[in-house]
Every structure is written in structure tokens, then in C-alpha cells.
């Protein structure tokens, strides 16, 4: 019996979320009294694989075939299922990310394992295995029991945190038995967002809304995000107007995020927007309208002109860094 983590990598490096998954899995395995292991798909150097041991996962299965980089849903699900059988997994943990959401349901069917996605923190009970997940887009939580022998969960980002816990590494080559023909997803082009913090990975998110008035006013928003090492986000009207890309839209029909710190500049806070950000640990709202609903959800607020507040904030952050 064991807990298995499906790690995600990018250009041969683990994404931050993989270390959070490892931290979580190590803790869960300890509570369950079982072993823990990880599966890594695609080319990742041993030195990188060994980093998982810093977070409590020593045993790492590595299938380094580059075909996995096509993120072929069917093939990856097959490989993770094979790994789960190999380590006799009773719980498989994935990230609640684009990739995790794509793989987990297929894996659930393959393993005849109940799936709960977007799990918040450790299980509320191990027997029966019950986890807490967000429902109604942040307006409530549901404690959900998985009845099957094997369980598949996806962990909501930032809901557990990264915890160092050094163990001995043990890296194994793993062959899931796939051939080239099993990969049918053909990538024609990839447009990587470089130099930017991934929204799902970000500890801090700087978000702006219609109060910014026009796309050309985003300069200080981007500057603040760069200073803080933050991800960029926006409200729905902003992406609908085409001021920013859909990829930045957070809210009920966009991305649901839960950073440690969320800045909302010129966002009134429609219920649909709050649904996508309300599980952030700390929300800071800057809005000219003191009655804007965003202040109901915020922990800290400034009633004022975003164009006046932004430069001051940028200065204050620079000062605090120096």
C-alpha cells in the first residue's frame, strides 16, 4: 500500500506544485502508515528528481521518454495507472491544474477509483476516506467520501503548502510499456509564457479590473507584479473587452485560484468574480467606490483612485525590499 504523486514538470524542471504535492503526500502517507512514491513522466535529470526527497518523497519512478511532453491525455493516464499498480497505490494525488484535471478523471476510470477534485488540505477522516472540496465555485465546501479501495484526488493549489522534510532519495527507471503509437496528440506549436509567474503556481496574484479604464494602463500593474514575483490576473469584463488574454481571467467562468495574497485593483467584486478568488488567504482591494462588494470579501482595503495608489504601492514595495 502506498500513496503515489503524479508530478508535473516543465522544461525538465518540476513545477512548484509538484513539491506541494510531495509535501502533502508525505504527510498523508505518514498518517496512513503507508509508503510514498512519485511518478515523473518525460525527461527530468536525476538531480532534479532527487529534489522531491527534500519534501519527503524518496522513491521516484521516472519514465523519461520525451513523448510524454506532448501531454497526451490517454498515454499519460495509462502510464500513471501503470505506476499506481506498480507501487500498489491506495491514493493517487494530482494537482488541480490544467494537466491534473485532464488526467485524473481518466485515471479514476482506469483504476476503478473514486475521484474528488480540488481537495482542500488533508482528509477530514481516513476511514471512511473523506476529503473537503470546494463546491459552487467557492460559495461552499463539500465533505466527500470516496468508497473505493483506490482513491484519486487532485489538490487545490496552495491549500497545503510546501514543507521541507528531507528523506533518502531512491530513483528508479520506470517503463509503462507505451510505444510511440500510443501518443496521438500532435503538437504543431507551443506558445510559452516566459518570464512570467504561472497563475496557478503564484503565491501572490496582482489582478485588475474595469477600473483600469484601458489596456494601455496596465504598465504599473505589470510593474508591481514583477516586483512582487506575482502572477497577473484580471476580471471578466477586462478579458471580454480584449484588454487582457482569457488566460488571465479569474472568476466563476475563468480560473479559480487560491494564492496567499490577492490584489484587486479597480475590481468591483461581482459574485462571479469572488467565486474564483475567495479561497485566497488574504485579499487586498483598491477601489474608488467604498460600497463596492469587493470590500466585503477583502481583508485589507483602500478606498481611492487606483492610479494614485499604484505608484505609491510600487514605491513602498521597493522600499521594503531595500
Amino acid at each position: 500500500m502506498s500513496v503515489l504523486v503524479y508530478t508535473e514538470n516543465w522544461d525538465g524542471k518540476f513545477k512548484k506544485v509538484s513539491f506541494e504535492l510531495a509535501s502533502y503526500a508525505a504527510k498523508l502517507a505518514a498518517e496512513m502508515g503507508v509508503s510514498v512514491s512519485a511518478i515523473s513522466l518525460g525527461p527530468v535529470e536525476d538531480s532534479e528528481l532527487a529534489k522531491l526527497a527534500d519534501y519527503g518523497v524518496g522513491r521516484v519512478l521516472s519514465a523519461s521518454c520525451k513523448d510524454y511532453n506532448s501531454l497526451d491525455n490517454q498515454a499519460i493516464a495509462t502510464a500513471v495507472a501503470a505506476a499506481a499498480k506498480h507501487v500498489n497505490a491506495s491514493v493517487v494525488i494530482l494537482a488541480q491544474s490544467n494537466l491534473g484535471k485532464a488526467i485524473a478523471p481518466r485515471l479514476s476510470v482506469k483504476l476503478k477509483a473514486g475521484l474528488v477534485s480540488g481537495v482542500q488540505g488533508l482528509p477530514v477522516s481516513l476511514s471512511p476516506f473523506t476529503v473537503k472540496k470546494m463546491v459552487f465555485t467557492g460559495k461552499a465546501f463539500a465533505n466527500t467520501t470516496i468508497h473505493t479501495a483506490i482513491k484519486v484526488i487532485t489538490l487545490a493549489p496552495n491549500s497545503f503548502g510546501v514543507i521541507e522534510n528531507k528523506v533518502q532519495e531512491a530513483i528508479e527507471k520506470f517503463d509503462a510499456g507505451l510505444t510511440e503509437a500510443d501518443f496521438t496528440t500532435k503538437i504543431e506549436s507551443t506558445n510559452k509564457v516566459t518570464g512570467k509567474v504561472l497563475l496557478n503556481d503564484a503565491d501572490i496574484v496582482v489582478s485588475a479590473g474595469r477600473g483600469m479604464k484601458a489596456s494601455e494602463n496596465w504598465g504599473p500593474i505589470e510593474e508591481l507584479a514583477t516586483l512582487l514575483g506575482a502572477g497577473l490576473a484580471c476580471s471578466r469584463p477586462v478579458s471580454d473587452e480584449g484588454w487582457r488574454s482569457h488566460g488571465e481571467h479569474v472568476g466563476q467562468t475563468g480560473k479559480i485560484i487560491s494564492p496567499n495574497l490577492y490584489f484587486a485593483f479597480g475590481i468591483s467584486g461581482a459574485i462571479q468574480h469572488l467565486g474564483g478568488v475567495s479561497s485566497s488567504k488574504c485579499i487586498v482591494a483598491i477601489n474608488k467606490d467604498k460600497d463596492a462588494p469587493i470590500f466585503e470579501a477583502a481583508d485589507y482595503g483602500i478606498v481611492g483612485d487606483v492610479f494614485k495608489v499604484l505608484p505609491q504601492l510600487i514605491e513602498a514595495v521597493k522600499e521594503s525590499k531595500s
Partner: protein
Amino acid sequence: MKILVLIGNVPDTTTKVKFNADKTAFDTNGVQWIINPWDELALTRALELKEAAGSTIESIFVANVGRSETEGTLRKALAVGADEAIRVDTDPKDAFYVASQLAQVAKGFDLIFAGIEASDYNGAAVGGMLAELLGIQSVSAVSGIQIESGNLKISREIDGGSQTLAMNLPLLAIVQKGIAKEPRIPAMRGIMMARSKKLTVVAPMEVETLTSIVTFESPAPKAACKMVAEDQARELIRLLHEEAKVL
């Protein structure tokens, strides 16, 4: 080519979420039901593809799992332009149960659209499960889909960028925002003709559920927002650093 669009029946996104007294069930009193927003965008894109010049799409089906009271949602999909509807007559118990029910009616379609998640239980599971049950390929986080001289071009979002893919049929596309600009408003004639379109009711299969919701919890009430004056940015940074400890 035949397209199937999976349709979820969900509470209107402005609904105040309430539960029964022992917090074991969602209180549906006074709730307005709508097509799950992602499913509605998927349907819009399917219609655009069908209407495009040189399209080889013969028909667009919509399907859901639900009791008769969910037929309004299916008829809305027919009013918007879907050709036929299928309803599996049972309560949607969990994602695996729903996917298994859909699997019996989803065979024989070339392209299946599913929304990336439903706005009620946020499971993000039915589409992928259905693909696995049907044994067909899936692509998730799809934000664009084109058919160019019979070839399928898919844009998907990945964690850290986006990709353009060439995919073969059959395929299940799990779509998110961006797939269509905005949901289509049904024309009056479409609304009046929706009732005359075929809506097939299918009996459910015997399927086990793998998960069940024990209790619901409402989020803890938020403490009042601490206000900082407009010219006190430095103070805000101090609070975030020392009090909230998030900087």
C-alpha cells in the same frame, strides 16, 4: 460528422447557495436553472462550426443526465440550435455515475464537447471519464477549435502557455473559456420550434457510485475589511508583512 455536446443543468451563477437543515443537501428552493456556462459556450462553438462554409457536420446532439425537470435546459439548447436531445432519466449521483450513463448514449459521435467543469460541484471529471469509458482520446483546457479541410486544429491551455494541436477523430474536447466569444441568444423562431425537435428519454443503467457527499459547509464568515487611507501605501505593505504575514 456528428457532434455531441454534454449539457449540465446548474443553478444560475448568481444563486445564493443554501443547504437543508442538516447540511446534507443543496436547497433547490427558488433556484433558477441554466445551462452550465462552459457547456453553453461549447454548444455555441459547435453551432458555429456547423454553420461555417464547407462544414461536413450533419447534426449536433445534446445530452444530459437528469430528471424531467431538467428538460427546460435541454430545450433551451434545442432553441439555440441543437438538432436533437437525449436525456438519461435519473438523478446525477456522482461524476462516474453520470459519465457511465452518458457512455451508453455517446457512442458513434465523431466529436464530443464537454465543459471543463460544472459550476455547481466543480468536479472537472465527467468529460475525461467519458472519454476513458469510450476509449477515445481527449484534450482538456481547450480554448479554440477549428476544422480546416476536415482536419481538427485544437488550441489548448497548458500550465505555462498554450499549444496548437492536430488531432484525429473521434475526440472528446473538454472546453474552457475562449472556445466561443459568448453564449448565443436563441432566436424567437428557434424557441418556438424547440418543442417540435426530437428529445429522446433513455432509461438509466445500473451503475455504482464511487463517491458521495456527506455534508456541506459554508465558508467561515470573513472578518471585516481593514481600511487603509489612500495615501498610506507604506502602512498597507507593513500590515501585509507583519500582521497578515503574506509578504
